């Protein structure tokens, strides 16, 4: 069994610092295991959020060696061997303590997006009919576990703190899941361009890079939505086509 060194951020909103901890690392261990061991052995008050330890609840988001990652899905064996591992809280949200941040801004953002609003049922029993090929695109977006790692890495939030004007990649994925849903009848493009601030995104793809569910956020959600915004606001010819071409 080898000894691993971990530099963990300790502190609250007012002040904080990195503190070094050593703990045994064994085969198959993930970073969250190391955090739990450190809690048990040397820092009982170390705050860390987690729930499933299976990459499905999205609670254990943190920054490991500078990259936003799920602690429970990051194998210690995949990190540079023998080197100190840095563990910090996410930077795009207010810190509560140690590795725990207050992500409630995200829930408030979600409430601003118009809910799913299906067309009238297709059958008298109140049900709808959909084809698999129509739903494939949105199925990718439904994989989102709301870990908010994409929000954390996005420079519009992380560096420029545009929280008041930019909903962030997670909510472009969410909007895309609703807007591309074949049964949905709601219009969300104006909100996307206005309040949602999709124009702030400069398609640098960091969100895609960190998504643990491997959702192609930029290529499959953001850019297609940007194109829908172009249809609506920047392309006079397409607008004409849409007037005569009917619904999507």
């Amino acid at each position, binding site marked *: 069994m080898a000894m691993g060194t971990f530099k963990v951020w300790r502190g609250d*909103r007012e002040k904080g610092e990195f503190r070094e901890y050593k703990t045994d690392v064994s085969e198959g261990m993930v970073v969250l295991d190391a955090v739990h061991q450190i809690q048990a052995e040397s820092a009982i008050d170390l705050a860390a959020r987690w729930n499933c330890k299976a990459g499905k609840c999205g609670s254990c988001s943190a*920054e490991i*060696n*500078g*990259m*936003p990652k799920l602690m429970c899905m990051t194998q210690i064996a995949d990190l*540079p061997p023998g*080197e100190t591992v*840095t563990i*910090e809280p996410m*930077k*795009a*949200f*207010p810190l509560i303590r140690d590795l725990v941040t*207050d992500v409630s*801004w995200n829930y*408030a*953002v979600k409430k*601003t997006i118009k809910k799913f609003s299906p067309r009238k049922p297709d059958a008298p029993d109140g049900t709808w009919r959909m*084809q698999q090929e*129509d739903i494939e695109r949105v199925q990718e977006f439904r994989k989102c576990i709301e870990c908010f790692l994409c929000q954390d*890495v996005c*420079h*519009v939030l*992380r*560096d*420029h*703190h*545009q*929280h*008041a*004007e*930019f909903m962030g990649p997670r909510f472009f994925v969410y909007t895309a899941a609703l*807007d*591309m*849903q*074949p049964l*949905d009848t709601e219009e969300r493009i104006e909100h996307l361009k206005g*309040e*949602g*601030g999709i*124009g*702030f*995104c*400069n*398609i*640098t793809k*960091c969100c895609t*890079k960190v998504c643990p569910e491997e959702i192609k956020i*930029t*290529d499959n959600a953001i850019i*297609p939505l940007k*194109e*829908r915004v*172009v*249809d609506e606001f*920047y*392309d006079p010819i*397409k607008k004409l086509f849409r007037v005569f071409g009917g619904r*999507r």
Partner: protein
Amino acid sequence: MPRVDVPLARLKFAQTQRRDMWWVAPLVVFTILSSFIGYATWAALQNEHYSWGPYLSPFYSPLLFASVGKSWFGKPPGWFPHWMSPAMLILGIPAGFRLTCYYYRGAYYKAFWADPPSCAVGEPRKSYLGERSFPLVIQNVHRYFLYLAIIFIFILGWDVWEAMWWPDASGTRHFGIGLGTLVLALNVGLIASYTLGCHSLRHLVGGWMDRFSGRPVRKAAYDCVSCLNRRHMLFAWCSLFAVMGADLYVRLCSMGVINDWRII
């Protein structure tokens, strides 16, 4: 949008806990794109050595005017400044297409403007406008450049056809294929793969719709474009090298530095 009332920490330029060589990718993009812009500008200004035998450099195609040899509209008209080359009339279209391409945008914002320098690495500037307002809101014209770029695929395809017909001393043209023909063909193949994988095209052929069932042709078109789109970055770079390589090949043949290899 809701606000975050607590002030968040400001990151300093290049501040990061990343230990990998995060600066390599933007540096490579910066070097390649600057070299390409440098070479393309130089080649466009030359106004010579852009054709050899039946070959025409893609930087000069379509050749609208030419003092010697074949061109679309013959000799340059009186109003056409001497210092200008015919390449300068048309290069704005492929240049504008690439400049407004979603992939290149993301890549050059990082490499040339450090916005961000790399993922999770601190930025040099505090202020930020993004593509929401002037000037970058202009990037939304991309689809119009796409329409023109599609026409260019046909023009470059025609050049490959022309590159198969070799004039003899009497001016009669005979079928033949040289290495240059293949170089031009590879170039148009890669440019087409890049262009037809465009995000705007993906939207226009079907992405704007929410339902594909009962529309098999649209679905097939959308799937094809999506397939190329998944490799858009790859084709963006390959086609960039191909177009530069094709110009260089024709140029070196014309200058007599290399001899074309006549295959058939």
